[in-house]
């Protein structure tokens, strides 16, 4: 169901970084079109 679905993954420095979210989602079949890590402080 998730195959081919496009994802934007925004991670957070004190939480889960963007590349980690992207890796998990790609492993589940999603297509990550953009990922970034942000620092909200």
């Amino acid at each position, binding site marked *: 169901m998730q195959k081919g679905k496009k994802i934007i993954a925004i991670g957070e*420095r*004190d*939480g*889960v*970084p*963007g*590349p*980690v979210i992207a890796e998990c989602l790609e492993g589940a079949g999603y297509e990550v079109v953009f990922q*970034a*890590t*942000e*620092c*909200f*402080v």
Partner: protein
Amino acid sequence: MADLAKPVRIGIEGVSYSLTHVPDLVRYGSKPLRELQARPELKEQLSKRLRNFAAATAYAPHQVYIGNITPEQLAEVAKPWYEKLIEGATPQGRFGDLVDQTQCYALLAGADQFDLVAFEDRWFGEHGARHAIGRAPRLRSGQEIQSLCDKGALPLYDGDAVVGAFEPGHSEDANLVAEVLLENLASKVTAAHSLRLALRALQLQAEDIDFVISCSEEAVGDRYNRGGGNLAKAIAEEVGCVNASGCDTKAFCAGPMYAMVHGASLIQSGIAKKVAVVAGGSLAKLGMKFESHLKKNMPVLEDMLGSFAAILSPAQPNQPSIRLDSVAFHPVGAGASPQAMAEYLAEKPLAKLGMKLTDVDRYGVELHNPEITVPSGSGDVPRTNYLTLAALAVMRGQIQKSQMEDFVRRRGMVGYAPTQGHIPSAIVYLGHALDHLRAGRIRQALLIAKGSLFLGRMTQLSDGCSFLVDRNEA
């Protein structure tokens, strides 16, 4: 185990802190500058939500910052803290002071070697003159100030009135526009102010300092050397440290921790005998979350420039000190997850000293004031960091899951630092840590700072640095 018998300590003579209240510079913070250009109607809303100096002084987190109340006492103050102002609060504190905007303007004028800033003569005579220090200020008539602004200078306000002008340093260089130079000069004067406070508190002469390391967040330089740096030497000159040279240490928010390690290492190696580690305030971060504060009908709380200065020298008996043998960095191969950070910046260096996570009496982490960050959805940053350490202690079987809150309460604290980036990142706790060490209330504290390197688009990595502070009982 041989390493355990050889602690390497560098003395921390003291640390001073200052907060500079600049409500009329909030408009020049990076976020407000962009948003006010796009939506000029926000100007009025912003101006209505700016605090006066009395409110900034009586704001409990600021009183913790300058050492008049402890983080533990702050935890007992009901929220919202901006409504529960501390009665009888003073701008002078045991660790330093709060500086008002008028004094800040006078400091800018006195530290300007390139004819960048000018003030309206009558306003300066009535308000700024009593704070004048350093070079004679450039004074102009109101008409001349307006003329400078019409030609591209940045107007400097006192409330609604334009009382000064900040000119660009070059007609073409984007690194020398007025906004950038104001940011750099503000960093210089706030750092210099904290260094003066530290010297005075420790009864030292400026000439005693060998070396100054600045870990401020500005980027001093021109178009051929953007971020070229060495604000440290400019700060040393400003304070009269004629025997010192200096250099800057940059590592995003972790900069101050690296600067402390570098300073301690200069002393350990014998290169320097007395090092000042300093940082000025980050003007770019003023009003960073102002829109959230406006939406919540709160005061705009990011109206403060934070600064500090720590003095390091060879360790004396019973003196609080940095354990150089405890220093840890976040290696490239460690991965950027919070768990990896906690492992490499807490668990592993502690294990090297024969300690567990539960052997540390107090952790100083990212101590951002949650009252600033929670309204914008950024969460309670210190609490998140403490829970990560507690979770690691659970994973290692050092505490039960049910004891996590107790771990956070006993070994952590509430955040109280303005969102100035480098300032909240552990170094803000050093003053209270020294107090607690001297009083024997804690045996040691582990300071842990993180840096968001990925923001510069050169690596996806985060970064971090930690070290233990304890009392030299050797």
